[in-house]
């Protein structure tokens, strides 16, 4: 997908430096190692008493991280201030819930429709909205959130379940043979979803599309003058984001055996926002890190209860103003400085690594070296 | 009146002025000549606080105003007529002028000053209710000058008064500035063109690449065709 038209006359293009390719930047060893770890973790945790609980926590982490990454894709990278994320999660969840509950479909089948409908909803919102400027996107997505919420509560019975949501949805039928290992298999399913989402988002960010998106975010007029199709880029990002958010919603519905209207609570929204803001706005690793931190802290600070939303709201506000880059860039810089490999000698010729500046319309794009 | 010592200033990532010294005496008309892009505007903006100063000092009537905020500097009597006028586009001529006297103590005082400016620029009074953005280039320039006069300035900094104006209008503008100077105002003018400043300059500095390379009495420097040719092209 080429998001840049050829403005320069056709010159003899220099041979691409394969070692500079994004997927080479993360050594295969690292990826393989992480995957292996991911696969082994439940087996290791089985031995612990709280192992099952930890696995559950990890599943929650995976799903939240997927949604956080998806939201970060459009807000942090795309500069699209959409507040429809939670509603799209709900669309996904309700789709599969209704198909499984009212039509009796097998959850493995119905869950496939969750991302489809979420994407469709996103396109429906996106088509009129994404052509307009930022303030309007905020308004229209907030409105969509509200509409979805009201519909979920007051809509026809098969959707609203009397105002409580869908409460008895079939869970993933893994069969009786699975027995006590059930959670482990659900874990692998969640890991697969997380892995897929992370991979796709990684690729999107490091593709010409991703570059076009950050160009648009940082300097719209310039990007457009270079031939970037603003609307198309944003729409694709929006659809991708909705796809995985819907998928996560679908998974969670069948994992928990239902979906309630509490998904629309502002506390869920601030959770996600906190993950992105604390972790690292507009960075790849940020939302994942943020998800881990928020979920981890929630476990540690058990007594916090009602104060959680209050604390998150304040923390988000403080970080947005005083430490807008979040934690990820700090950690990555530290890694580069102390543990990372030496940058190659001819540093001038290397393409920049991920941009993480979240500047507004007059922001300058800052690139970080290494990776 | 105004003293600048070793001023270094610039924008993110680049330094434009590398250490500039100049003075403007009371009632003096000082002109800084230099081609575009060499730092004239930056110099004026650094003096009035719109650009952060990296090194050096700016002293106004004995007070060190180097790190002061622009609005505080303006309240101190240093009025800057910026390049491009920077009028308030959706405010009327009269409102623009009144804003010039923001720091004035009372509305009566403001109206008095308004009267004085109207006497100097009678046509401004004719157009008092017109929105600033509907004015022509020359009218805007005069409004900017008038607005600057509304403050109780001790010294006026004027950035490229002839920018974007037709020759006839330019004559008028410089005549107006001459009148202002003759009223006793200290002036620091930044200009690209040596032709019009003869009548109001007492001393001239030549600015090149962020440094003042020559200084001298106006009579001397402005007559030196060869010198001007080589600097201004």
């Amino acid at each position, binding site marked *: 997908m080429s998001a840049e038209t050829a403005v320069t006359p056709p010159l003899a293009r220099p041979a691409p430096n394969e070692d500079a390719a994004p997927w080479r930047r993360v050594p295969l060893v690292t990826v393989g190692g992480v995957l292996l770890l991911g696969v082994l973790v439940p087996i290791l945790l089985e031995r612990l008493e709280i192992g099952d609980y930890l696995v559950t926590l990890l599943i929650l982490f995976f799903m939240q991280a997927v949604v956080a990454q998806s939201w970060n894709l459009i807000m942090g990278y795309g500069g699209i201030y959409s507040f429809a994320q939670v509603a799209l999660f709900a669309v996904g969840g309700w789709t599969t819930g209704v198909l499984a509950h009212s039509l009796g479909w097998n959850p493995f089948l119905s869950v496939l429709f969750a991302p489809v409908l979420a994407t469709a909803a996103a396109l429906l919102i996106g088509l009129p909205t994404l052509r307009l*400027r930022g303030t309007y996107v905020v*308004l229209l997505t907030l409105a969509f959130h509200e509409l979805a919420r009201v519909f979920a509560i007051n809509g026809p019975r098969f959707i609203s379940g009397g105002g409580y949501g869908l409460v008895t949805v079939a869970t993933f039928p893994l069969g009786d043979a699975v027995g006590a290992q059930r959670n482990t298999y659900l874990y692998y399913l969640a890991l697969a979803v997380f892995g897929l989402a992370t991979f796709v988002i990684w690729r999107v960010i490091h593709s010409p599309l991703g570059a076009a998106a950050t160009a648009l975010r940082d300097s719209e007029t310039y990007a457009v003058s270079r031939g970037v199709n603003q609307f198309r880029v944003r729409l694709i990002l929006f659809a991708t984001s909705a796809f995985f958010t819907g998928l996560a919603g679908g998974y969670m519905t069948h994992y928990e055996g239902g979906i309630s209207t509490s998904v629309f609570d502002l506390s869920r929204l601030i959770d996600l926002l906190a993950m992105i803001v604390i972790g690292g706005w507009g960075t790849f690793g940020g939302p994942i890190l943020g998800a881990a931190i928020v979920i981890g802290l929630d476990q540690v600070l058990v007594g916090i209860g009602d104060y959680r939303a209050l604390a998150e709201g304040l923390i988000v506000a403080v970080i947005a103003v005083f430490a807008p880059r979040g934690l990820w860039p700090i950690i990555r810089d530290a890694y580069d400085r102390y543990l990372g490999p030496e940058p190659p000698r001819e540093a001038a010729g290397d393409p920049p690594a991920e941009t993480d500046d979240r500047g507004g319309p007059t922001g300058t794009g800052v690139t970080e070296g290494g990776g | 009146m105004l003293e600048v010592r070793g001023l270094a200033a610039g924008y993110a990532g680049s330094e434009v002025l590398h250490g500039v010294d100049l003075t403007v005496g009371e009632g003096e008309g000082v002109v800084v000549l230099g081609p575009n892009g060499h730092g004239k505007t930056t110099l004026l903006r650094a003096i009035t606080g719109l650009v952060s100063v990296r090194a050096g000092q700016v002293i106004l009537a004995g007070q060190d105003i180097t790190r002061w905020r622009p609005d*505080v500097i303006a309240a101190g009597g240093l009025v800057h007529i910026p390049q491009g006028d920077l009028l308030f586009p959706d405010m009327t001529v009269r409102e623009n002028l009144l804003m010039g006297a923001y720091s004035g103590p009372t509305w009566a005082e403001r109206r008095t000053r308004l009267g004085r400016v109207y006497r100097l620029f009678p046509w401004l009074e004719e157009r008092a209710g017109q929105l600033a953005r509907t004015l022509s280039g020359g009218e805007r320039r005069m409004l900017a000058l008038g607005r600057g006069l509304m403050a109780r300035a001790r010294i006026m900094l004027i950035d490229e008064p002839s920018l974007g104006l037709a020759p006839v209008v330019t004559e008028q503008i410089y005549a107006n500035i001459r009148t202002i100077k003759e009223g006793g105002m200290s002036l620091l003018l930044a200009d690209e063109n040596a032709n019009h400043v003869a009548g109001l300059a007492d001393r001239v500095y030549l600015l090149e690449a962020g440094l003042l390379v020559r200084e001298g009495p106006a009579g001397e420097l402005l007559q030196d065709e060869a010198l001007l040719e080589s600097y201004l092209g």
Partner: protein
Amino acid sequence: MHNTQLVQAVWGGVLFGSVYGLMALGLTLAWGAVRLLNLAHGAIFIIGAYAAYWVVSSLHLTILVALPVGVLTAALFAALLHALFIRPVIGKPGFDNATLVATVGLSIAVSAAALLIFNPEYKVVPPVVPGASIVAGVQITNQGLLVIAASLALFAVVYLFLTYTRQGMAIRAVSQQREAASLMSIPVVRTYGVVITISGALAGVAGVLLSPFFFLNPSSGFNPMIQALIVTIFGGLGSVRGALVAGYVLGLFESFVEVYLGVAWALPGVFLLIIVMLIVRPNGLFGVGEVRRL
């Protein structure tokens, strides 16, 4: 029968319109002067309402005392918002981002705080002017009349303030050409603070005067926020006139739709109107073209 419907529609429209206008006024001022999209506007709204409630229920004072307390509390919160979260990023490239996220965060924090302090039960805030009369079969509440009067009065006050006072003109100057304003010795950052505080006070007034019409709870700020946003955009971001006119246009439209087509059609109808407006006149009724996004 027809008469009743018409009176109901008109009354509802004028009342809604006044409400919307009041909510939108603060928001449009903040945008116009500071380019701030204040998503904490709804939070300030409920701060005013809850403060008034507290004065009445805990201090057992009359609503007449609670009203100014509510307004002042709201204004104070707005001033703090400016000092702590807006001032640090003024003029920086990340301003839009930082303020958007920060105001969202604070909005939710305030809602959570209200939940903790006042619990989720619906609270009742007494009207300043109780009682009602029946006109052509329609209940005309005195509080409603007060809201309409207050809204129009505040619009007039704001207009006069912006047009004829030194501070008001300074606010306009800063919003049109910030650098030049500072060259006129106008303290830009402090002016921003003044505008945001005024904006907060207006939200506070709305909060105290409107809360008798609904049951106050921690999420009460959300809908007024959206409504204010709709009206502001419809009227043109930054236009005071726009907020006034748009408020009544939308209010009357919604009211007539509600009365003649049914409540269910009100919200979709309004959205349709918005979308039409955004297509036909993206800058709203009185908006000026924006070069900057958001």
